[in-house]
């Protein structure tokens, strides 16, 4: 059957939201402005989570102890993204990575950059699972996750 017979109607759905950050996450972003990556520690299971939580999802108890974690960590996994899709925030190609910051107990999702990203084979030689990366700060802080501009491999 031809496309003409399969009639489609094009449209858009657009809905605006304004989501509260709450105390814990507001504080996290305030710390980022001071170039500090802060997590919260659970008194019970003693895990340190970044992003911080106001409560431990496992112990279901308040988490009230702030701890500064290292700005360096280990790459637990990463992906080279070179496919465009609707409403993508970062220009491709980019590397999305899960980084275990030293002194924390959860993987932190951010990007790895500061290297030539155009050639994937060369990227693979630089970015390694288990490799170490460190945070590079944005000069201008806007109070969002990109106040850490990216993580770059530690030479």
């Amino acid at each position: 059957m031809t496309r003409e017979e399969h009639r489609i109607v094009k449209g858009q759905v657009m809905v605006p939201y304004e989501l509260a950050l709450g105390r814990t996450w507001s504080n996290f972003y305030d710390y980022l402005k001071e170039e500090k990556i802060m997590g919260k520690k659970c008194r019970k299971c003693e895990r340190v989570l970044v992003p911080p939580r106001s409560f431990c999802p496992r112990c279901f108890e308040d988490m009230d102890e702030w701890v500064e974690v290292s700005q360096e960590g280990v790459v637990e996994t990463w992906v080279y993204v070179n496919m465009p899709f609707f409403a993508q925030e970062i220009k491709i190609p980019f590397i999305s990575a899960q980084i275990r910051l030293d002194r924390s107990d959860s993987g932190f999702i951010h990007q790895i950059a500061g290297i030539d990203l155009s050639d994937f084979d060369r990227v693979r030689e630089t970015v390694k699972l288990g490799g170490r990366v460190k945070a590079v700060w944005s000069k201008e802080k806007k109070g969002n996750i990109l106040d850490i501009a990216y993580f770059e491999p530690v030479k």
Partner: protein
Amino acid sequence: MAKEYRTIRNDVALPYQWALGKTWAKFFDGLKEEKILGTKCSQCGKVFVPARTFCPECFIDMAEWVEVKPEGKVLTWTLVRAKYYGQVKEPPYIVATIQLEGTDCGFHHFIGGIDLADFKKARQKLKRGAKVKAVWSVEKKAEIYDISQFVPIK
């Protein structure tokens, strides 16, 4: 929505391409030719507009097409003054349920051609059972707006 506490603006916008299917495609093609098409159920005998693939009562396919008159009576209506995000039309406007002649359901569309400045008079005009007729858009695109609105019949 300015808040005194910290928030993140999060606009969700996504594109769609909705399939009309044969029945509704034929219904909207009808509008393009200034015809309002319904379907009649062979079991309960009811006529539905817009046309349906299957009878919403009997769950059986509806094969019989009927053209209905672009006229009917007002079952109920509301005058919309509220403003909201993504609204289809600039208020004030009237949305109504109209029973088209020869159909067994209400049809939803706008009613115009009424002076809203004198609202009491407007209410009189739109009493239950008031007769209205479809006004066709000049430019038609095989969509629901091919009927621009309904207006009272004098």
